[in-house]
């Protein structure tokens, strides 16, 4: 069952130069209980999609989509209030540079306390009857911190954000994110600013959460290599367009889009095949800037297979769950184009 089903999401931002279509008919389908990686370079629009899901966009954005469903709820039809309720309970988000996303004037204890589900009067009443003691706030917070792997909880709780390292701050953020047992956690480049050891710790934590509590995780990243071990499904996005999407095996073993191939080739494997001071593989050119977006397939100017027909938007092709938007995909022999689209 798809937890999050987004079809043809488009975001237009009105700037001084007119309306710019920053996200162009992106589609994303997240399977419940999986870790889904959304990979794209900086500026490709990953955070925008995340914001659109949460409804945190500015007033001058126009968000349109054919479908935007969270489970059975249509996100586009919710009022602001209902949206807010969902955000705390069902979807949680963790960010890059976690220290700056914590309130610098408050101790960690009070910040975590803020997100805990409040004990309603009914529960208190019931607990008195049932003689089962409700856990005190202290207890619950301590448990949360232990869950995310912070051993010295007393020290951490009594500290301010600027006294803690990025790694601990990220764990705290994750703790706050899972406090309400959300069904989806969106992780916006959570480890981009960290060194390798902490990075491994965070990923391990996310993996554990996913395994133990079946929390779906949408992991945004700009580094194909770092998430490739972790994700069950991967979607690649280039300049606001989703180019390829599929399971990990499908993407790694049979990449069809030229961009995906380029990404895979950039994963460095330190074996003897790379000679000293040799040039690393890249696609020629740069990401187009927002006011000079190419028409049609936006990889066009840089794509090695580009031809005239690339000025129109390619239709997404679906090969057993491996979705690709390209006019000239790399096709295996025993794959035939299947243009059926799931409704």
């Amino acid at each position, binding site marked *: 069952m798809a937890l999050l089903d987004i079809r043809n999401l488009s975001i237009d931002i009105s700037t001084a130069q007119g309306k710019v279509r920053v996200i162009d008919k992106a589609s994303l389908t997240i399977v419940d209980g999986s870790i889904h990686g959304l990979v794209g370079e900086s500026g490709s629009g990953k955070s925008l999609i995340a914001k659109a899901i*949460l409804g*945190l966009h500015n007033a001058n954005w126009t968000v349109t989509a054919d479908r935007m469903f969270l489970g059975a709820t249509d996100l586009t039809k919710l009022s602001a209030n209902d949206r*807010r*309720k*969902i*955000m*705390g*309970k069902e979807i*949680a*988000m963790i*960010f890059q*540079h976690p220290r*700056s*996303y*914590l*309130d*610098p*004037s*408050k101790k960690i204890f009070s910040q975590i306390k*803020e*997100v805990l589900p409040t004990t309603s009067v009914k529960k208190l009443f019931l607990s008195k009857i049932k003689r089962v003691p409700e856990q005190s706030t202290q207890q619950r917070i301590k448990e949360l911190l232990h869950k995310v792997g912070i051993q010295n909880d007393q020290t951490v709780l009594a500290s*301010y954000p*600027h006294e803690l390292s990025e790694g601990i701050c990220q764990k705290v*953020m994750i703790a*706050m994110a899972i406090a309400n047992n959300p069904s989806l956690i969106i992780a916006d480049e959570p480890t981009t600013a960290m060194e390798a050891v902490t990075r491994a710790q965070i990923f391990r934590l996310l993996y554990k959460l996913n395994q133990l509590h079946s929390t779906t995780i949408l992991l945004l990243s700009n580094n194909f290599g770092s998430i490739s071990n972790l994700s069950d499904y991967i979607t690649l996005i280039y300049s606001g367009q989703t180019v390829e999407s599929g399971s990990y095996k499908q993407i790694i073993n049979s990449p069809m889009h030229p961009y995906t191939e380029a990404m895979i080739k950039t994963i460095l494997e330190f074996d003897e095949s790379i000679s000293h001071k040799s040039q690393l593989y890249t696609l020629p050119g740069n990401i187009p800037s927002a006011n000079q977006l190419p028409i049609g397939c936006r990889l066009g100017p840089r794509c090695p297979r580009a031809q005239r027909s690339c000025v129109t938007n390619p239709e997404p092709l679906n090969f057993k769950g491996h979705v690709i938007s390209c006019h000239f995909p790399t096709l295996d022999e025993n794959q035939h184009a299947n243009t059926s689209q799931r409704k």
Partner: protein
Amino acid sequence: MLNYLFRRLNLLFITAFILSVIAFILTYWSSKNTLADADAGYIIQYVKYMSAILQGEWGLSSIDQQPMLIKGLTAFASTLELCFIAFITANIIAIPLGIFAGLNRNSLLDYLIMTIALIGLALPVFWLAVITTMLPRLLGIPLPIDGGISPVFEIPVVSGFILLDTLLAADTYQLDAFFNRLAHLILPSSVLSLFLITEIIRLTRHSITMVMKSNYVKAAYAKGLSRKEIVFRHVLKNALPPIIHQLRLQLSTIISFAMVIEIVFSLQGSGVWLLSSIKEGDYLALPTAILIISGFILLSSIFIDILLMIISPIKRKSLYVD
């Protein structure tokens, strides 16, 4: 944190030293014949002067032979009283307005509030003070426009803060003198608070806007908090330190405006005292005023820094003074 305090104190000592040298030069220039050992070198005279200052002997006024220190402190206390009342009034009005303006940037409310703030910035203080002396007459409001307190009340000077002194003299006059003093302060403090309101609105609006753009507020939105909750729980406390920091820099401007207003309204504070001293030729008032007023500003700077350190955990980490 102690490190920071220590550096701060260091700065204080250096500034205080420079000020004392200036005061010494002024004293020397204004009363050449009252300094002992005029033949001795300047350094020795300076040392003698500093020891006299530290012992509390600041010289006698040439008008009425009262000790200068007492006169200066009494006059300055009255100025401080005015500043204090104006500050409180200004905060009560300006901070809510600034918050509204900051939260609703570029809305009609924002433009309205900023217009008020700009008007306050554009009007010169002395002109406004003079207009305000005529205002009650025009509007028919019976507020006093002259003097610090009605001459009917004879309040012995105990602390220099006339509001306190009127309360101390309550057995003679009950609370009449207190209310009279308050009434005399209403018009001057509203003129001073107009300037303060301008400053505080601008600072608050800027600070709130900056805080609203920050990451933790975005995270708070993502957590599902409502705007009101975010403002009260996260924004206010974080917006305060830059406001206080900027206000500290404005302290000397506030005091000089207060002195101008005092002259217009004939309040017996340091403005009137300095002006009449210079007119009468009592030039010893100049170094006294420099030491008292600058000393006060230095000390309050430090207190504000300490206050900032208490309320804002980020500042506790900073090593350098800005």
